[in-house]
């Protein structure tokens, strides 16, 4: 029988307070328990560790090929999918009530460190239509829902055809004129459907506050837009003070990596990052580029606590970011060359 994992204690720790040694001790303790739990509850995982040893990083691809779950069928309340481009298989992540509650809690702890405790009026740069199928969420739907708890008066800026809903946006701007608001959306969708329309019409919206966006740079880099350019351009069509990116994956929803005011992505108490040399899988030093491996202490319904991504990244430092947050901070360069072409949450069906 699995020993209870004490998540209540984990959630009392401020998300960016632990220094290296404290965090290592804490993570060791939780990862030991998670390992034990998944070994007991997931047969295929047990077989994998028999070959690969304790707590191996699982390639994200395994979640496409196999149904990996550590909970009974009747416990599963939600299945999340990465919305892979057509013709590709999608990851299926099985969530039970406890895991999804934990994900929401972690997300709220992390993001409120940047947005403050009060719930700001929220403008989602997406269409309500994304949430149509309530049992089978795409990464996009899950992202919107997760963030929606951090705001109030949730308003969608795009209509079903992904066009700007001017009436709604104008009403929102008027209602909260001069106040701080929270805007949220996926990078590519914001660029394509929000920014470009405003730019073409030479319109500037009186929206103040913070924009949080995520979901991959793959498509944006095709359009040759850099992170800095994205930030500057979005500020140019609004009155936003902050435009912050986040990095995360559907396989580890909740424990996302927020970008700070200094432009660095940060690991929180719920997560960690390691970089491997792709040639020999040795752990890379600070400032060496390599394959990104991510830890999340949250999942108990599927064995996704340590995952090998297909992204390339670099650790920039630990405990010494000028923003004052503890933990590792890093940079992501995008998909590793030669990695399978993979959809991310910014893919969407064309109407």
């Amino acid at each position, binding site marked *: 029988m699995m020993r209870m994992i004490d998540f209540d204690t984990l959630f009392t720790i401020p998300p960016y307070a632990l220094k290296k040694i404290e965090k290592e001790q804490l993570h060791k303790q939780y990862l030991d328990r998670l390992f034990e739990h998944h070994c007991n509850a997931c047969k295929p995982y047990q077989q994998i560790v028999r070959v690969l040893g304790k707590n191996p990083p699982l390639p994200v691809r395994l979640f496409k090929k196999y149904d990996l779950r550590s909970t009974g069928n009747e416990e599963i309340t939600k299945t999340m999918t990465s919305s892979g481009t057509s013709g590709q298989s999608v990851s299926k992540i099985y969530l039970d009530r406890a895991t999804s*509650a934990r994900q929401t809690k972690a997300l709220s702890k992390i993001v409120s460190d940047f947005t403050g*405790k009060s*719930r700001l009026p929220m403008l989602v740069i997406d269409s309500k239509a994304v949430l149509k199928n*309530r*049992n089978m969420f795409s990464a996009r739907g899950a992202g919107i*829902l997760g963030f929606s708890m951090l705001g*109030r008066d949730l308003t969608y800026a795009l209509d079903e055809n992904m066009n700007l809903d001017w009436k709604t946006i104008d009403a929102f701007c008027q209602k909260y004129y001069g106040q701080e608001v929270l805007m949220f959306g996926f990078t590519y969708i914001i660029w394509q459907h929000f920014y470009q329309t405003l730019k073409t019409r030479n319109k500037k919206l009186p929206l103040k506050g913070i924009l949080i966006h995520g979901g991959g740079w793959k498509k944006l880099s095709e359009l040759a837009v850099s992170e800095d350019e994205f930030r500057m351009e979005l500020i140019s069509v609004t009155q936003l003070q902050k435009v912050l990116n986040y990095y995360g994956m559907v396989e580890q929803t909740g424990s996302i990596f927020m970008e700070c005011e200094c432009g660095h992505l940060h690991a929180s108490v719920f997560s960690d990052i390691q970089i491997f040399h792709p040639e020999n899988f040795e752990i890379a030093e600070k400032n060496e580029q390599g394959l990104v491996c991510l830890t999340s202490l949250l999942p108990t319904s599927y064995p996704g606590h340590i995952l090998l991504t297909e992204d390339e990244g670099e650790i920039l430092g630990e405990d010494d970011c000028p923003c004052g947050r503890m933990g590792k901070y890093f940079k992501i360069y995008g998909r590793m060359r030669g990695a399978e072409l993979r959809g991310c949450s910014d893919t969407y069906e064309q109407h």
Partner: protein
Amino acid sequence: MTNLEKYNEAFINSLGVEEQQLQGLTYQSVDTWDSVGHMQLIATLEDAFDIMFDTDDIIDFSSYEKGKEYMAKYDVEL
């Protein structure tokens, strides 16, 4: 309408449940009380009582009964 009636009505309207189902009703025990339904319920309650929940309370608002405790926290007597 009493506060309790308003409270009940928020559940009935946003989750599409019957009054008899309310006692013992918990998050995800009916199809409509999923994460989408949850945010609708929260928004309805906030409008009805002119309050604003903390994010933590939204997450922990896990049953009809538990919700009553939170209403008290926001000075709504049921």
